[in-house]
């Protein structure tokens, strides 16, 4: 379990807090989404959850960050990174460049931690298969497209098998197919007991895969709830959180008085169908029906 209690943080010499009084509780074996406008402190929160704040970035951190019963501020960074894997935002910077092939790049973290050779090879093969990058293994990580690099960056953390995975916009460079595949893999990992915290703003995917969402706005957690509750909340615009296309359509319909004002807004297609009263029976006639 991850528990943040009254966490406030200011970068060194900045004179101003980026996060204030953040309370957050994340259950083990779940996928938790954190959403919010850019600049709301998502990257900062990701670094706090993974121990890089305050170990590397310094600055002024107050409150407590407890992961698996241990306070991160009392652990050395090496112990933090063995608990929490961090996938950073820009895959180009996640690639270490220390190895000349994708295979070597995936093994880099395990080499640093002293994983036995056979074990490394089998984990590389397994994760590459999961993320469908097996055919890239012998290529240079710098010759890949942004999307491929992002998959390599994610894979390079998955091979470490940390019990907690924090991912800062892990699908920013991916096409819709790649994005769905990554979330499918995350769901499998959750099934195997991994705790996943994902900073992401694609509402359809969060609704389909996340167990819980937290909204970061105004330097604190402005709201928490199920994806359905958060994504259909009237304050999404104000938070800088994008709603799904169904919610947006329903909201427009409501503004124009096409639907009753009190009906809860839909988030998924199924909910939208019910909301708008679509069913096989209400299907508009098509030219084929006339024949």
């Amino acid at each position, binding site marked *: 379990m991850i528990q943040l209690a009254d966490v*406030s943080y*200011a*970068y*060194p*010499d*900045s*004179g*101003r*807090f980026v996060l*204030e*009084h953040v309370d957050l509780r994340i259950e083990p074996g779940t996928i938790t989404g954190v959403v919010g406008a850019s600049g709301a402190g998502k990257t900062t929160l990701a670094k706090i959850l993974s121990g890089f704040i305050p170990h*590397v*970035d310094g600055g*002024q951190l*107050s409150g407590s960050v407890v992961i698996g019963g241990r306070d991160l501020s009392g652990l050395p960074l090496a112990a933090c990174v063995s608990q929490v894997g961090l996938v950073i935002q820009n895959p180009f910077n996640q690639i270490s*460049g220390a190895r000349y092939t994708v295979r070597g790049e995936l093994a880099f973290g395990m080499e640093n931690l002293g994983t036995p050779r056979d074990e490394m090879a089998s984990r590389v093969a397994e994760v590459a298969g999961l993320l469908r990058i097996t055919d890239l293994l012998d290529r240079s990580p710098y010759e890949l497209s942004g999307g491929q690099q992002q998959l390599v960056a994610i894979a390079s953390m998955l091979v470490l098998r940390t019990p907690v995975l924090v991912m800062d916009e892990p699908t920013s460079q991916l096409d819709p197919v790649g994005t769905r595949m990554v979330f499918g893999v995350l769901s499998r990992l959750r099934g195997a007991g991994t705790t996943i915290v994902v900073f992401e703003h694609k509402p359809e995917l969060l609704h389909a895969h996340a167990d819980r969402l937290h909204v970061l706005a105004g330097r604190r957690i402005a709201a928490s709830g199920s994806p359905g509750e958060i994504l259909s909340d009237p304050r999404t615009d104000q938070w800088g959180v994008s709603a799904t296309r169904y919610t947006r359509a329903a909201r427009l319909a409501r503004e124009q008085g096409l639907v009753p004002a009190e009906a809860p807004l839909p988030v998924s297609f199924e909910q939208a169908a019910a909301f708008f009263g679509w069913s096989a029976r209400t299907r508009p006639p098509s030219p084929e029906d006339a024949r």
Partner: protein
Amino acid sequence: MSDQAPLDTRRSRNRLLVAAGAVIVVATYAYLVVAQPAGMADSGTTRAGLIAMAGYVIGAVLIAAGSIHQLPTTTIAMIPVAIAVNIVVGQLVAVLGLPVYLDSIGTVLVSVLAGPAAGVVTGILANVIWGLTLNPIPLPFAVVQVVIAVLAGTAARIGVFRRVYLPPVAGLVTGVAAAVVSAPISAFVFGGATGGGTGAIVGAFQAMGQSLLASTTLQGLLSDPLDKLITFTVVGILLAALPSRFLQRFPFAREHRVVTTAPLAPPPSPSE
């Protein structure tokens, strides 16, 4: 490896490596200059080349090994960027046909931001990279980069980069030191011929009756001070352009107030 040793032993081992390397380099220079080995004058068959090469290379390796262990990961991550700056800018300048090298901008920048130890590693490995990619000729000169890094780091520590007009002066001084230190390698390993233009200048000094070592020293004094003056000035300008949050990331730059004398922002207190 020995990374598991207790912190104190590691620290003193690192200091020992750096000190031993420095002593070897100084002793090598002193021997070559003071004891001007005989025989060089007639056929170039003395061991001066061996001594110059061995002394400088072993010294550089020891200093690099002692320095790298002190560096945190953020600094290590910066060094490849700095070396790439050294090499790409150096090549660009060569292509544009400028009369200077400007191949140590990265080294100086790292020394100023992260301290002389980081600069030393940057400079030495930049020469190793030259050797691995383009040309092994700069390899024996690696120790010159140590001098540049140490002087640049010291200049930063005493506040040279807080004033616009001081970096050129520090560059000038560094250039003189670099010229002096590199002269024995140019003379005894390369016979004064490290490149076309420089070789001709060495020849001109020899024709005026100077010894080989004196000629390579004078040749260095003609080009290095100007080169380092421009390098330090460029670094001063870059520092002014870097975002202050980035500069704050480096404990060395923060601790020694390398760029500004402005007081720290007061630590904030959470609202409510």
